[in-house]
């Protein structure tokens, strides 16, 4: 039994880990072919390593963990850097005046609570659910047309108070099917639907909100001066971006990068 120690014992671990040069590998393999004790030991170590690698699989990352990490990074980005503001005397004076006016206004006018503060909704989950409802036809379109202008006019007739921008995605293989008015996080939403020739669905929504209403845990990408917030909810990817006072979102079960590229293509600077 103890004869192993006088053979290639010290090199078996390196051989199993692939940490030997080809010359050493050849020499040890020759030895293993003719030495049962060393071969048994090599086999035991090799198989243990394989079994360990086989059984150590990645687990699902809970959304709350990624949200927590992103939030910590946000805090770190703010507190870790020096507060860097530009030296503008008039800007400071204007900001102070604005703060004073805002403070007085708050005392005089009781405005409705902003959507972000009043509701704890996961907009990514809601838009992903809307996508699934459209895909399963549980939520039918109220207006069918392949014309962006006609769908925009429908939204206006239906009482959508903000300007909608229904874009033509024909160049990217997506054909407009129509739209419906909808509610998202308690606010009116203009929802319109595209489909490719092979049936791939893309759902877009526009509604009045800010990015502060988005849940944490997004992948943030900046493109052409606009920040895009990508979320994964099950097999659905949602990408949000702001256009003035309106938040736009695309939802699809296509490849996440493809959804992001579609959002880049259609985002308008406001």
């Amino acid at each position, binding site marked *: *039994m*103890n004869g*192993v120690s006088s053979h290639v014992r010290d090199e078996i*671990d390196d051989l*199993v*880990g692939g*940490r030997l040069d080809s010359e050493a590998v050849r020499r040890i393999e020759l030895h293993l072919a003719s030495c049962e004790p060393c*071969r*048994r*030991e090599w*086999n*035991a*170590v090799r*198989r*243990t*390593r*394989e*079994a*360990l*690698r*086989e*059984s*150590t*699989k*990645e*687990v*699902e*990352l*809970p959304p*709350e*963990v*990624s949200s*927590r*990490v*992103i939030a*910590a*990074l946000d805090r*770190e*980005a703010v507190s*870790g*850097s020096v507060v*860097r*503001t*530009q*030296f*503008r005397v008039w800007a400071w004076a204007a900001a102070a005046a604005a703060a004073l006016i805002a403070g007085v206004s708050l005392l005089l006018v009781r405005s409705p609570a902003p959507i972000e503060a009043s509701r704890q909704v996961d907009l990514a989950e809601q838009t992903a659910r809307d996508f699934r409802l459209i895909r399963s036809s549980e939520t039918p379109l109220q207006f069918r047309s392949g014309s962006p202008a006609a769908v925009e006019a429908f939204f206006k007739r239906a009482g959508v108070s903000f300007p909608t921008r229904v874009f033509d995605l024909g160049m990217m293989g997506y054909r407009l099917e129509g739209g419906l008015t909808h509610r998202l996080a308690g606010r009116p939403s203009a929802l319109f639907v595209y489909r490719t020739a092979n049936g791939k669905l893309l759902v877009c929504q526009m509604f009045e909100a800010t990015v502060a209403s988005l849940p944490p845990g997004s*992948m*943030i*990408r*900046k493109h052409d001066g606009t920040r895009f917030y990508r979320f994964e909810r099950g097999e659905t990817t949602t990408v949000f971006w702001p256009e003035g006072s309106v938040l736009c979102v695309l939802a699809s079960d296509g490849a996440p990068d493809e959804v992001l590229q579609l959002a880049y293509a259609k985002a308008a600077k406001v």
Partner: protein
Amino acid sequence: MGAYEMNSWGHRKGSARLFIAYYNRRVAHRNAADEERRMNFEAAAIPLMKTVYSRAISLAGTREDAADLTQDTYLRAFRAFDTFTPGTNCRAWLLTILYSIFVNRYHRKQLEPESMPVHEIERLFQHAVYQETESRSDDPHFWASEDVARALARLREGFRTVILMVDVDELSYEEAAQALDVPIGTVRSRLSRARRILYTELQEYARRTGFLVGGEQ
């Protein structure tokens, strides 16, 4: 105040304007650099969070501790992102940070693995090796995954950390040594013993469940 005195001299007033313009340019430049740094970090590191969290669970044992460990890893990585070379192995870089935090902050006291004399580990290992027939030993799925996970969890942390680093995460001996703050020779010897203890333990499970000669069934 010195600034007002300088304003009474025409050329010094101009100097103050130049300083403000210079300061504003510097601020704008640094803000843009901060933004770019954050974007680069997110692009490189965020997609690996599942890997980091998975390993944190293997190390910490509970999901709560694993979440803490993951967050600490990302914060430290973000602070040290300037030391990361783009295009190199971000996964290995993050995992090295994870292991380093785990070792230093969480379980330094429990990392001394000398629970059993080396010769005793070797004796038990050799005994297990010779109980196994050669034909049986070629089966890669001979041990159940749950048994492997259980045996891994039973390893003392000093062994478990090293075997995860090297065998599962494929960190080099140098990276493992650096994260653990021990000599490379220590990494090698712990790895060797960890593999043998794990094998011995797995064979013991197999014997108890009747899959090896001498078992209960």
